[in-house]
């Protein structure tokens, strides 16, 4: 046990590699496979053809059978390595298959048909990252509609979140007014009881406002996030009051102070909240699920969910659409990972 703890607690220099370092690296590398492997597998699988994808056991890379244009045939024919009766091998193109018999032609000599048992031929394959699944998926999945809805929701909701939360945070951080502490306390306490527990009345209210099957029903309710207000307020508390006072002496209105003193100085906190908001909204599942029931309003997440619920799961298309859905957030992460990880570490929110 002592060994384990010594590996876990010591931080050693770069000089020499000791046992604890090796254990650490082993753990981290193994973990990397477990954490990132599934996503990699998803991406690799998404390039496999609908025939290849059901093969068992699965192969790591996407293969595709090579085809060839042969004179006298309209469609390109699939190529096979064939073992002929005399024991020699040749690369032939298959014209058709009848039961256990395969009829092939030599591309150099398309007149003559060679018949062999299907056991005696092996498909000629090469690794290929073809986009067929993506193209077919985008057509059959209503991808552009869902994407547009997701983008509209994410962008407008993030703008509203930043605006409303920073306004409220400004008031809560920089003014003394009656009911301030009560308002703050109520907002923070709802962190404990999230929307998922009051689904039914929330749905009723959405209905009452007339936002059932309306993107506004997804955008507006989530714009008042207690975490956002908390984060911004804590940050604005560090802005000295003297700045505000001197602006007031210069005749600035409270709105001017908010837009030209508070907001520019709160940029780091606003950036963190913006990144989070984009993440929350892009990945949001529960709100759109209860608010939207018409498929032309679906966001990508909800669309994907209904796509997988269809009777006949078409994995090759679903996988391609899943990749497209996680792509934007992955790109955001690739560019802003430092902001995201430090933002979470300091604010403790997700």
């Amino acid at each position, binding site marked *: 046990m002592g060994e384990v*703890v010594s590996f876990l607690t010591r931080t050693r220099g770069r000089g020499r590699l000791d046992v604890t370092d090796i254990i650490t690296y082993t753990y981290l590398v193994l973990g990397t496979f477990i954490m990132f492997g599934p996503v990699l*597998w998803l991406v690799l699988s998404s390039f496999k053809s609908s025939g290849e994808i059901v093969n068992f056991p699965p192969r790591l890379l996407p293969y595709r059978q090579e085809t060839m244009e042969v004179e006298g045939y309209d469609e390109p024919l699939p190529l096979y390595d064939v073992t002929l009766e005399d024991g020699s091998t040749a690369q032939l193109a298959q014209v058709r298959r009848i039961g256990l018999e395969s009829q092939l032609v030599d591309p150099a000599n398309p007149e003559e048909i060679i018949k062999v048992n299907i056991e005696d031929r092996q498909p000629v394959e090469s690794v290929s990252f073809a986009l067929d699944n993506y193209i077919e998926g985008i057509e059959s999945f209503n991808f552009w509609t869902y994407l547009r809805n997701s983008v509209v929701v994410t962008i407008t909701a993030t703008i509203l979140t930043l605006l409303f939360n920073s306004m*409220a945070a400004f*008031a809560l951080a920089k003014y003394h*007014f009656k009911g301030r502490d009560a308002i703050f306390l109520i907002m923070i306490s709802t962190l404990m009881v999230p929307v998922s527990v009051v*689904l039914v009345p929330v*749905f009723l209210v959405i209905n009452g406002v007339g936002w059932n099957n309306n993107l506004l029903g997804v955008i507006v309710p989530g714009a008042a996030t207690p975490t956002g207000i908390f984060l911004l307020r804590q940050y604005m508390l560090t802005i000295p009051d003297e700045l505000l006072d001197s602006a007031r002496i210069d005749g600035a209105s409270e709105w001017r102070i908010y837009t030209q003193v508070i907001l520019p100085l709160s940029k780091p906190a606003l950036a963190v909240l913006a990144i989070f908001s984009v993440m929350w909204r892009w990945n949001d599942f529960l709100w759109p699920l209860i608010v939207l029931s018409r498929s032309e309003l679906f966001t990508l997440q909800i669309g994907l969910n209904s796509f997988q619920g269809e009777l006949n799961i078409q994995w090759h298309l679903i996988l391609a659409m899943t990749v497209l859905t996680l792509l934007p957030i992955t790109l955001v992460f690739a560019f802003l990972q430092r902001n995201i990880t430090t933002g979470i570490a300091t604010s403790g929110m997700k």
Partner: protein
Amino acid sequence: MTAQARSGPIRTVGSWLGQVFGKIWNVIVSLFDVFFAMLQQRLGIERMPYVFVLPNLLIFGIFILFPMLLNFFYSFTGGIEFFPADRTWVGTANFEQLLDCQSFLDPNTCHEDLFWRSIFNTIGYVVAQVSLMVVFSMITALALNRKIRGRAFFRSVYFYPVLLSPIVVALIWKWILQENGLLNGIITGLGGEKMPFMVDASWARFWVVMISVWAFMGFYTLILLAGLQAIPSDVYEAADMDGANNWQTFWKITLPLLMPNMMVVLVLSLIRAVQVFDLVFAFTGGGPGSATRFIVQFIYDNGFSSPVRRYGIAASASLLMAGTLVILTLIQLRFNREEA
């Protein structure tokens, strides 16, 4: 790819976008300024903060507070009518129905057997998930806190799944765990038999826990890592001089100093585990049978997807669950106070 190589064109586009948005922003601000200046003259400075909190407060009141209050009304009324005006007052009948059990330990003897099954499922899930989450995020945070090469890379890798949406996580793992999936491919490749990962109740429960840990672990690791990095190194040096071994250092120094972060991890993961819904809903749909049906899904099913919508039952179950969450939070506050 170095940071510099990447930032060149992006910075240009970024600054251009920044200018455009800056212009638009200025116009909007000035327009609003006219309005707000008038408002300020009318109301006076001391009432302006109310104007600033108003939008938030409205959204908050209408979509969060009001529904919470309405939930009480639903839970004390019965029938299948959706609009409150049409519903009949039934007192505590919904709660009685939910709590109607001959033995609380056996869901089969309960009137609402699915409710109790989902409670037991949730308890099992919470216990397994939270303990695994704490252990794994602790080990990972300790490993990432060491001076090793590629620390930033590893940290990103462990964090990455946190960014994926529930439905994406569910699909990734469904694809791996399905009958002809990657995992069964590896198992048969090693000479084993195919496993019924998605069909067998115990396996489904196991994977629901594992996938949640996979998906959320990076978040808690970051919180613990921040705590570890805040521990000053001279504390360790002092312990070293006093001849403390690693085991003692971990239990007597690292863990106590990490306690605040540990509490955050424990409580957040606990509260989120009790509310588990979307990930599992997309992954198993509650099945096989009712093996992975949890409380929020019980509420969702009764309110939204069952042929007969039992809003009263759904609302009562919400209330019982919200009560549990409040109690959990109060316990945490108590703990925190004792720590302090």
